[in-house]
């Protein structure tokens, strides 16, 4: 799907060095492979997160660098239990980040309250009650390999996003008309190929 997958199939009518793609592919490739995160470690998952950053499971090879300030980062990793006292600060930090921004919720406590769901009077049952979440990584704490899979899923999500056609809103009839036209063109091309084969003999 991405730009680099087409390197094996260059545009054959012009030579081996040209690859056709859209500008959106190029921009998404740049955005997904170098997203910088804000370091926000709350509890036990933060220790596992520090281990992912260290030399054994290296996170920097995915292009992710820790930034201390929310205004310089692309996404935020909520690792650990969010309490009611901390929830307002999390919302404030999320609002300080610049668009486009993403959120990864790491660990059971940030997903849904974790082991403290029943009698915890001071625990927020899931960080998606204050900010919108893109990727959930389960585990208590999640293994570093699970965390890296979450990172890969986030990169896939970013590389499928649309940048240019977001503002154009098609109505239902327009979309149906586009589909009908595409089908009509495919049938016409199939008839043309048939005719060519008949003429060749």
């Amino acid at each position, binding site marked *: 799907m991405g730009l680099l997958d087409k390197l094996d199939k260059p545009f054959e009518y012009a030579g081996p060095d040209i690859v056709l793609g859209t500008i959106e592919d190029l921009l998404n490739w740049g955005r997904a492979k170098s997203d910088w995160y804000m*370091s*926000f*470690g*709350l*509890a*036990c998952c*933060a*220790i*596992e997160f*520090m*281990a992912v950053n*260290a*030399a*054994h499971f290296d996170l920097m090879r995915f292009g992710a660098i*820790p930034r*201390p300030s929310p205004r310089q980062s692309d996404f935020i990793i909520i690792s*650990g*239990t969010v*309490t009611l*006292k*901390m929830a307002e*600060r999390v919302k404030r*930090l999320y609002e300080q980040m610049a668009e486009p921004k993403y959120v990864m919720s790491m660990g059971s406590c940030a997903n849904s309250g974790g*082991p*403290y769901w*029943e*009698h*915890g*009077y*001071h*625990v927020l049952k899931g960080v998606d009650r204050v900010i919108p979440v893109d990727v959930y990584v389960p585990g*208590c*704490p999640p*293994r570093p390999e699970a965390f890296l899979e979450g990172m890969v899923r986030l990169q896939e999500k970013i590389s499928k996003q649309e940048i240019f056609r977001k503002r154009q809103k098609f109505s239902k009839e327009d979309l149906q008309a586009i589909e009908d036209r595409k089908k009509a063109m495919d049938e016409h091309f199939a008839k043309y190929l048939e005719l060519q084969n008949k003429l060749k003999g």
Partner: protein
Amino acid sequence: MTEKRDIEIDFGQVHTERMRLNVGPQHPSTHGVLRLEVELEGEIVTDVVPHIGYLHRCFEKYCENSTYVQVVPYIDRLDYIASMSNEIPYALGIEKLMGIQVSERIQAIRTVLAELNRIASHQIAVATFGMDAGAFTPFLYLFRDRELILDVFERLSGGRLLYNYIRPGGLMRDIYPTFVSDVLAIVKQVRETNKEVQNLLIDNKIFIERTINIGILPADVAINFGCSGPTLRGSGVDYDLRRAEPYLLYDKFDFEVCVGKGLMGTLGDSYDRNIVRMWEMEESCKIIEQAVKLIPDASEDVRASIPKKIAPKGEIYTKAENPKGELGFYIVADGKNKPYRLKGRSPSFSNLSVLPYISKGYMIADLIIILGSIDIVLGEIDR
């Protein structure tokens, strides 16, 4: 070279004001969610007020609503860096209340695990202390060694960070066949890495200049504030629970209690607290080598002494020497299968209350060094 400065400065005709700033709760160097309200005169700190409670997870309410065995995973999450050491005082307390005797082999395995956890916790403490002072490489070296210890724990119990392994009355399951040789290989690697870190970080002139004479804690003040662990021993007080009230076979081993001596600066500064941790890693290696000789090869049923129904009656205050200090549990049991009250006395709670007293007159960068040398974990402060 930093030194303690006089707070009351005469500015003459110029009108000045002191400024109040927040350090945290989100800050790369506050070791968790801690908010320090700092009053500044320029760059000099005149007052610090710590605000805690951003990680209050209702541990004591959970202990009143769960059975004695269901409490063990919540105890793991108190000091999440060294989880096995948290479970030990709880298991010993319940065994004393119910009058259970455990075999010497199990006690030897528990000692080895406690000392391995001590090494792992001090590795993180020295690594993050170096990062606070600006050195990034020891962090990578020490975390690489910590992965070897976590591999052993993962083969034993299934988890890398939170284990639920030491139960009242025994262990979760027996050790695997190559446990002893793995542990001895770890000891060898830890000694080599410690030599490298000593060269890189501890004998480094810049590190020494940044940490001596900072945050001097006198011995009588430390005792009055209830400090324990390397924070107390760095000020010259010779109090270690493994020597004073031995538990778990510690009276059979030959090791020294590491006490700060004021080698480079004044007695009780941040350099002393850090060097006590480096020396304790070496002492733990000595204890492990002596303890593995007491683990015979034959395997046994480690769950044989675990009682079918735990419903004791009585009260007890059990304590143990965690890597960060003295962890105590005050257990009140009334004959039912759930505790009536379980209060956790955590070492970092008392260690952190010393911070406003020892950081007046230094600069902001020194405040971060003092906080790193006390070595707190927010999970056990807020419980």
